């Protein structure tokens, strides 16, 4: 029952952020958007799949909307959502097809390679994609009305709450148990009757859609999308977020993980080598958490 409190907790936190002033509103939208990508990485980690190309889905969600605005001049939220889901879902199916045949480091490197092919396309096809400058992301409109910051925060919170609910359902479901089986002993799970390839394909599509919607939200929040969304370092950060979420015992762990990661990254920017600080701090937090949990 407690698990069902997760969506409510996310919406409550977002509501509190709304009343916390402009910075907290922006931070909440950004974190909730990022958390959806973390959810995608976390879902695939449930199968033992480390996807170092999840950033490609994140980018596609945002680019789908950016391209819609650039070429079709539409800022309609429903159209953007459909485009983001379609583009990210198709990319997830491609990744899932890779995941059917490859495992371990081979899967990780293939997913990374695919994402870097997309990164290359986004950078080089300047006339279509805006190259390394990226694309402008408009303020989305719902039924012709700008949704504004409050609307964007509500959208981000609703999406995160919906995926938290899905995570809760997944954890208790037949599919969730099969994911655990595939991660621990794939051959045995197949010998018990599970179509492992089908499970991985569907989960890849779901993970990619989550990440794509995350990219859309973050793109809206910064009014901009660039190829950096698809860069492998971005994917790596999402995988770290997914790993942290997998240590946390709550369904909303992916939001907590995203918030923690963004806070640590923001803090580290004051130092000469921020990546080292991020790595060190996250390891320290994880070690402290594990020690506490074991006790």
């Amino acid at each position: 029952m407690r698990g069902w409190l997760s969506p409510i907790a996310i919406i409550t936190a977002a509501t509190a952020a709304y009343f916390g002033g402009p910075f907290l509103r922006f931070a909440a939208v950004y974190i909730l958007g990022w958390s959806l990508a973390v959810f995608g990485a976390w879902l695939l980690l449930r199968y033992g799949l480390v996807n170092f190309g999840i950033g490609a889905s994140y980018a596609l969600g945002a680019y789908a909307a950016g391209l819609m605005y650039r070429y079709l001049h539409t800022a309609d939220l429903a159209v953007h959502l459909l485009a983001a889901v379609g583009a990210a879902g198709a990319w997830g199916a491609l990744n899932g097809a890779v995941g059917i045949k490859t495992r371990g480091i081979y899967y990780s490197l293939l997913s990374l390679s695919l994402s870097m092919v997309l990164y290359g396309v986004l950078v080089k096809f300047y006339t279509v994609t805006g190259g390394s400058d990226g694309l402008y992301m408009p303020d989305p409109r719902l039924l012709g009305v700008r949704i504004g910051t409050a609307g964007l925060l509500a959208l981000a919170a609703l999406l995160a709450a919906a995926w938290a609910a899905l995570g809760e359902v997944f954890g208790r479901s037949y599919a969730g148990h099969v994911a655990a089986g595939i991660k621990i002993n794939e051959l045995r799970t197949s010998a018990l009757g599970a179509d492992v390839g089908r499970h991985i394909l569907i989960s890849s599509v779901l993970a990619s859609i989550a990440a794509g919607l995350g990219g859309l939200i973050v793109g809206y929040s910064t009014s901009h999308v660039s190829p950096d969304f698809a860069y492998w370092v971005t994917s790596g950060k999402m995988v770290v977020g997914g790993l942290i979420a997998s240590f946390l015992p709550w369904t909303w762990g992916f939001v907590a993980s995203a918030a923690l990661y963004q806070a640590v990254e923001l803090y580290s920017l004051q130092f000469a080598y921020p990546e080292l600080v991020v790595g060190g701090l996250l390891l320290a937090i994880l070690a402290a958490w594990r020690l506490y949990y074991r006790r």
Partner: protein
Amino acid sequence: MSLRKSFGGVKAVDGVSMDVEEGERLAVVGPNGSGKTTLINLLSGLLKPDSGDIYFKGIRVTNKPLHARVKLGIARSFQLPSLYQGLTVRQNAAIAVSALRGFSLRPVDEEDVRDALERFGLWEKRDLPVGSLSEGEKKILDIALAVVARPKVLLLDEPTSSVAEENKFELMEFVVGRLKGVSLVIVEHDLDIVEAFADRVAVMHSGRITAVVPPGEVRRMAV
């Protein structure tokens, strides 16, 4: 029919033809390296034969993958119990129950989990990690997981290996007693077990079935 499988220059299974009747217990015996486990792997779908065909109730299943054969009614256990280490007995059974449901987001039916474990007397141990079970209990759980699919043919790969000598008969009686009506293909080294529990015995040597005999004649052939 006439199954062949080679690994490099080694003919592990070399032209094996055999059939199993409904409800029959067929034992496969032979020395180490004679191709028994490879035969089980071919029948279950873990390996694909180089040539030959496998039929199940008139359906050609040669090219069907492992999971598809399970759904048709061919299940298997493993020589070394293939369990989900780090999880409890209940969680192992929940995975077995879930494996047959496709990608379903419905919650796991705990009654199915309970049935799977109670049938093999493991419900009391449901909260124990599988690593803490005895070798015999691990074997039973391994078979219990396979039986969740309600197979018509169950392939048992050395069901009594690594079980203490004094417990082997008890284990087989316990398992066979719960598999009435299921055809069993039992790969086994222990001829006492074979004599006691098999209806027919196929003798394998160098990848071939050299004889199919009643259980009482196996010892004579071994001599």
